[in-house]
């Protein structure tokens, strides 16, 4: 683990993010929507610009210098991503367009190609739609069963229920979040993997949130699949990552057809390239891979340990500060939680609260955050407001949020 706070110079970090210096609606921007998508440091922007200004070409197929260099840079990003997740090899890393695509890839290639009709997939009540809808679609197309693991009132995965769901040995895949994008709950991934494996199931973790906030070690977790998305990790849109264990990749048929994923193509029959190329059809997100590499370098330079420590401090501060706002309900009281707070105010609808906060310069999200079933479970069908933190978030911003919520409550009372 990296050391914590000393290297964490928040002023210097904030200076890396040009947008944080901007004003919106005449107020200093307080960006508390990093859980939806994070802002980009100049290191990421510069890397993408340099690529486009002086090092751009398509990859994998050119025998000229520029294309060779672009290919090397693209593959270096894959190596860096593998190191970031502590994957055994860069060959275990598949680039996709986002997390959603990563989970759809698993649902198609592993779901239709490896799971048998009648086997079951377990998801949970607190999944993002991206880790729920693909399994519903798989069920309808392929005849797998979909089982839903309950959560406790504190917002933790109900491991007792998970054990029940696994008991009949028919579960082929457990697909759960590593960190809830609403409750902030961090799930006990290593334990879940152990339970799944003992029951003969593979396990997928949706790390879209977790990978931003914690050091992830796919080998320590014993994950079969793990995914995250570039734009939440201070990188560009248009790129996501799927870690998939090598032997699973070999067993899985391809998902998308096209260039680069083939070994030989005849008019009527084709054979497939070795993984991970087999799962990467067409021109990949080249400029985005360069940006993602810069983003990984950026967070690694600060240190995931330091980032986690900073966030723990923010979470403690937020929990204390927001708990003092009268009429505020915080959803999710998990023991292990990250910097995502969904809340409701007694006198006002989430949308109205978000509009007021926006006028105070505070960007929060309102709605159901792509987790509609979870909002039903919370009795918050009408939506919640969500403040989510990034590595540039300060306790001062959280204080300002709390103050503004007090005023907002009065405004609507």
């Amino acid at each position: 683990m990296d050391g914590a706070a000393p290297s964490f110079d928040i002023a210097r970090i904030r200076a890396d993010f040009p947008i944080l210096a901007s004003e919106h609606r005449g107020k200093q921007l307080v960006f508390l929507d990093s859980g939806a998508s994070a802002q980009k440091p100049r290191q990421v922007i510069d890397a993408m610009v340099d690529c486009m200004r002086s090092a751009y070409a398509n990859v994998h197929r050119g025998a000229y210098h520029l294309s060779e260099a672009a290919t090397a840079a693209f593959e270096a990003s894959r190596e860096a991503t593998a190191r970031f997740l502590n994957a055994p090899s860069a060959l275990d890393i598949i680039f996709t367009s986002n997390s959603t695509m990563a989970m759809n890839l698993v649902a198609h290639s592993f779901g239709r190609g490896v799971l048998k009709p009648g086997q079951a997939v377990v998801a949970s009540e607190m999944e993002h739609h991206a880790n729920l809808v693909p399994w519903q679609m798989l069920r309808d197309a392929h005849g797998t069963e979909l089982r839903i693991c309950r959560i406790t009132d504190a917002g933790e995965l109900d491991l007792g229920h998970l054990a029940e769901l696994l008991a009949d040995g028919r579960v082929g895949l457990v697909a759960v979040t590593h960190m809830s994008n609403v409750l902030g709950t961090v799930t006990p991934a290593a334990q879940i993997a152990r339970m799944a494996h003992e029951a003969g199931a593979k396990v997928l973790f949706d790390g879209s949130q977790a990978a931003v906030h914690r050091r992830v070690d796919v080998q320590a977790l014993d994950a079969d699949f793990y995914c995250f998305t570039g734009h939440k990790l201070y990188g560009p849109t248009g790129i996501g990552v799927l870690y998939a264990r090598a032997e699973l990749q070999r067993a899985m048929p391809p998902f998308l057809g096209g260039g680069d994923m083939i070994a030989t193509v005849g008019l009527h029959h084709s054979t497939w390239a070795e993984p991970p190329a087999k799962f990467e059809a067409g021109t990949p997100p080249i400029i985005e891979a360069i940006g993602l590499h810069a983003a990984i370098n950026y967070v690694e330079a600060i240190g995931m340990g330091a980032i986690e420590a900073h966030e723990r401090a923010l979470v403690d501060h937020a929990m204390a500060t927001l708990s003092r706002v009268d009429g505020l309900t915080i959803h999710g009281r998990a023991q292990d939680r990250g910097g995502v707070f969904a809340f409701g105010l007694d006198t006002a609808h989430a949308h109205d609260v978000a509009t007021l906060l926006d006028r105070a310069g505070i960007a929060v999200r309102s709605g159901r955050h792509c987790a509609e079933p979870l909002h039903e479970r919370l009795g918050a069908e009408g939506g919640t407001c969500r403040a989510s933190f990034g590595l540039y978030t300060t306790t001062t911003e959280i204080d300002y949020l709390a103050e503004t919520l007090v005023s907002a409550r009065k405004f609507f009372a």
Partner: protein
Amino acid sequence: MSFSELRDLYQDIILDHGRKPRNFRRLDAPTHRARGDNPLCGDRIELFLDIQREHIVDAAFIGRGCAISVASGSLMTETLPGKTPAQARALSDAFRAFAMTGICPACDAEAMERLTPLAGVHEFPSRVKCATLPWVALNAALDGQGQEASSE
């Protein structure tokens, strides 16, 4: 923090209708009804119309939503009685343009008066859908297909 700049959007009349919506009830025997849903934020309304001899004689709604959508439903149901379905539909189209632009050359004066408090919404693009949700349900109800309408 005074939020005085927000008074354009949240005029007192909006806050009042948002807190205490008029016609916030079911009709026992509606001739027309429809649901309106804004899936992203979870707003949902159910609209009831009683149309007799080509005129709306009663309009009511239930549901959940933000101050803007509830106030809009409240003001809409106040405005509808006495109108023919064709007039209601014209008003609905006019209102939607109004919500997006803040002006409504086509609105008739009386309707206008009741609806002007919603003029401010056009400055808040993501809130326009809140204001139009009841009107989307109105069109669906008049279409008589009774199905769910969405303002997404």
